[in-house]
């Protein structure tokens, strides 16, 4: 067997066997069942037939045109900005073993294409399932072929563009001359599109609302010169949007022809791509590492810091852990997650205003974002044990008790989330003062605002503690450090972890809710004071419960060993 095919086949087989072996363990087995159920329910389970009008709007010409435009814009981005460097990426092992092996560039590219087909096939399959849920006239195998042609063409185009760009960067005008036809064709597409949009800009600008804007845009794209540029891509997209077998049969051959042309183009673009591929591989490795540590927003490579946060060299050592985690927050895009809600709350408030009461809309959106942050804050930032468990040998060698480590780690994520939430609640409070809408009395609003900082701290601390507890107690169920499990059982683990989170929080909330209810019911004070007291006291109760949980997690961390996390 060809060595490269052997590599692909064995890698896939071993990955599959590894997943099967893992499933023998009860917790992975349970996770596999949960993951399978999730996939069945959300991806495969039929939702009922779509009506013809629904089908028309879902798979109609407007959607088809929009997908075509999106495709072209994405590909233009890879040509103009070179954002698709990772299309050339190989794994570190591939770079060290295949680049030094006696293999031609064309064979390496063919290998890359073959591997890309695995991702293309999986994506095609997912989309077939998504599209068949509503029930369509087109049989699934035909839909699958249409989607496969579309994704394969996109994959080939990305690779071709990356090859031409890398050659151009390395060899300048010589390479530009060599690849002139590729460049001219895609530049023609861009020019046709831009000229088409510029010629119709008056119509677009004068559109009274968003609906009219998009229908004007659709008209412009369907008429020359924009339609000339979009033509080849419309051919590729068309089979995916076919609503009958005859429509599909007419559309598939031109699409297959475009795919074949792309294949020829890439196969004969024999550029010196190794250096660019190497850079792309490093970039991909960095992105994977960022994703693995869930710094999913960390798009830039870390650079030398221009500023720091001061830390005294004496004092309680736990503060050093918080300081370290705050620096991490500051130096990664995680910080944007916290600045974003303020900007978005105000922007969304303005966007949805009808001109009558902007402040009311800002109040609602602030409240909404504060709530969303409560649910997703702990998922968006992970500057706590979920990140530091990968440094377990270092953390455990430090002269600080495990309980103090857990407190510091939980505080590192809790404090910034609670601060932003409280800021949003203050915006909501101020906005309600200037609004003409009168929902809740000012006294009660003030009472709730007084209790808000305590509630924000207690709620977030409880949620973050649960998530850190999962990382310590069930490290195999939480994405930590360098080891990432993928597949159905990993999805199932996430589902089970989420359920465990909800149950833990639900149980933990029982005493504070009872106490709050008792205070509001039996305390014969003005309602605002009762509410403030209820929020503050129940927050303290939740805080005490959380502290107990932290101490328990601390003891478990003391017993945790690095081998358990890998």
């Amino acid at each position, binding site marked *: 067997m060809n060595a490269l095919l052997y590599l692909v086949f064995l890698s896939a087989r071993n990955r599959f066997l590894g997943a099967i072996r893992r499933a023998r363990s009860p917790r992975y087995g349970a996770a596999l069942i949960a993951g399978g159920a999730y996939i069945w329910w959300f991806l495969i389970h039929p939702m009922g037939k779509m009506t013809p009008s629904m089908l028309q709007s879902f798979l109609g010409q407007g959607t088809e045109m929009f997908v075509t435009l999106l495709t072209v814009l994405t590909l233009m981005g890879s040509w103009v900005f070179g954002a698709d460097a990772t299309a050339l990426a190989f794994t570190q092992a591939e770079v060290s073993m295949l680049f030094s092996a006696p293999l031609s560039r064309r064979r390496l590219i063919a290998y890359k294409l073959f591997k890309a087909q695995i991702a293309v096939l999986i994506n095609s399959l997912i989309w077939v399932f998504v599209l068949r849920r509503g029930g369509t006239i087109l049989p699934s195998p035909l839909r699958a072929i249409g989607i496969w042609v579309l994704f394969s063409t996109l994959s080939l185009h990305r690779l071709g563009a990356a090859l031409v760009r890398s050659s151009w960067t390395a060899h300048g005008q010589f390479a530009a001359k060599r690849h002139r036809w590729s460049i001219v064709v895609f530049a023609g597409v861009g020019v046709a599109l831009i000229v088409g949009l510029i010629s119709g800009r008056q119509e677009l600008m004068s559109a009274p609302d968003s609906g009219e804007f998009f229908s004007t845009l659709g008209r412009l794209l369907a008429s020359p010169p924009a339609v000339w540029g979009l033509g080849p891509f419309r051919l590729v997209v068309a089979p995916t949007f076919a609503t009958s077998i005859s429509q599909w049969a007419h559309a598939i051959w031109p699409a297959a022809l475009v795919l074949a042309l792309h294949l020829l183009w890439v196969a004969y673009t024999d550029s010196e791509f190794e250096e660019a591929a190497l850079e792309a591989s490093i970039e991909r490795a960095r992105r994977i590492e960022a994703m693995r540590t869930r710094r999913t927003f960390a798009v830039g*490579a*870390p*650079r*030398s*810091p221009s500023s*720091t946060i001061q*830390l*005294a*060299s*004496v*004092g309680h*050592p736990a*503060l*050093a852990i918080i*300081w*370290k985690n705050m*620096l*991490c927050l500051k*130096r*990664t895009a995680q910080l944007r997650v916290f600045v974003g809600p303020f900007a978005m709350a105000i922007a969304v408030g303005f966007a949805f205003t009808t001109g009558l009461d902007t402040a009311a809309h800002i109040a609602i959106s602030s409240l909404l974002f504060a709530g969303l942050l409560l649910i997703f804050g702990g998922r968006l930032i992970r500057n706590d044990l979920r990140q530091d468990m990968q*440094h*377990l*040998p*270092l953390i*455990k*060698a*430090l*002269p*600080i*008790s495990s309980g103090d480590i857990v407190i510091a780690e939980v505080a590192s994520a809790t404090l910034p989330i609670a601060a932003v939430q409280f800021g949003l609640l203050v915006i909501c409070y101020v906005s309600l003062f200037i609004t003409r809408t009168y929902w809740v009395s000012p006294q009660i609003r003030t009472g709730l605002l007084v209790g808000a900082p305590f509630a924000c701290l207690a709620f977030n601390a409880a949620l973050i503690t649960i998530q850190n507890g999962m990382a310590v107690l069930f490290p195999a169920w939480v994405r930590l450090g360098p080891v990432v499990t993928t597949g159905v059982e990993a999805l199932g683990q996430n589902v089970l972890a989420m359920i465990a989170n909800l149950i833990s929080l639900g149980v933990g909330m029982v005493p504070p809710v009872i106490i709050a209810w008792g205070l509001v019911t039996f305390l014969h004070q003005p309602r605002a004071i009762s509410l403030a007291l209820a929020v503050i006291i129940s927050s303290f109760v939740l805080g005490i419960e959380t502290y107990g949980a932290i101490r328990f997690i601390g003891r478990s961390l003391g*017993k945790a*060993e*690095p*081998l358990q996390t890998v």
Partner: protein
Amino acid sequence: MIAVHDLKKLYGDFTAVSSMTFDVGPGEILGLVGPNGAGKTTTLRCIAGIISPSGGTISIAGHDLRTDAIEAKRALAFIPDEPHLFEYLSVEEHLRFIARLYGVADIDARSTAILSEMELTDKKRSLPGELSRGMRQKLAIACGLLHNPSALILDEPLTGLDPAGMRRMRATITARASAGAAVILSSHLLNLVEELCTKMLVVRQGKCVAYGTIPSIIAAHPGLEGLPLEDVFLALTGDGAQGA
């Protein structure tokens, strides 16, 4: 300074380390040698408090690691073969972090001196991702030495260092021992062990097969006289036949 008695570590049914007993006094350097998978790193990790022993006792500077872990760890520095660094802390910030954890008061002076010693002064604002493997190792060493530990554990300390760095590291180990630190050094470089160590502990399959000064070990095993240390090592670990 470092006293290990009847150390045992089990992973399920597998015995990684058993019946390990040794001590390292102030000024002594113990060379821990053995083939791959012999239990060296497990032993060092137990002493550093990273993993819990299944049995036995470990004492660092008079503090029992089980009952007084924080004070024991405060007296200790563990420098692993693979440097564990925080990706988003600069070189200088790593030292500040360690200073706070170990309560190093004169951090500015110490930091300047140790950065100079490790030739990291020009890189003090760099993040670990911008450093070479050797520089990362130097930073890990700097973090370990910052608080003047009285017990020093080094796992393959020369890995990744350039020749000048290796020479400086050897001098640093000797200097720390001369200043009264107890040092445990795990290495496959037998010439390093022979040059620096006052005692040697040979482990095989988790068990101690020889312990003492190199002359005393040779004297205790007839037939090893006059052999180079490599042959002594191979004979003790049972790899002599394979190597022949």
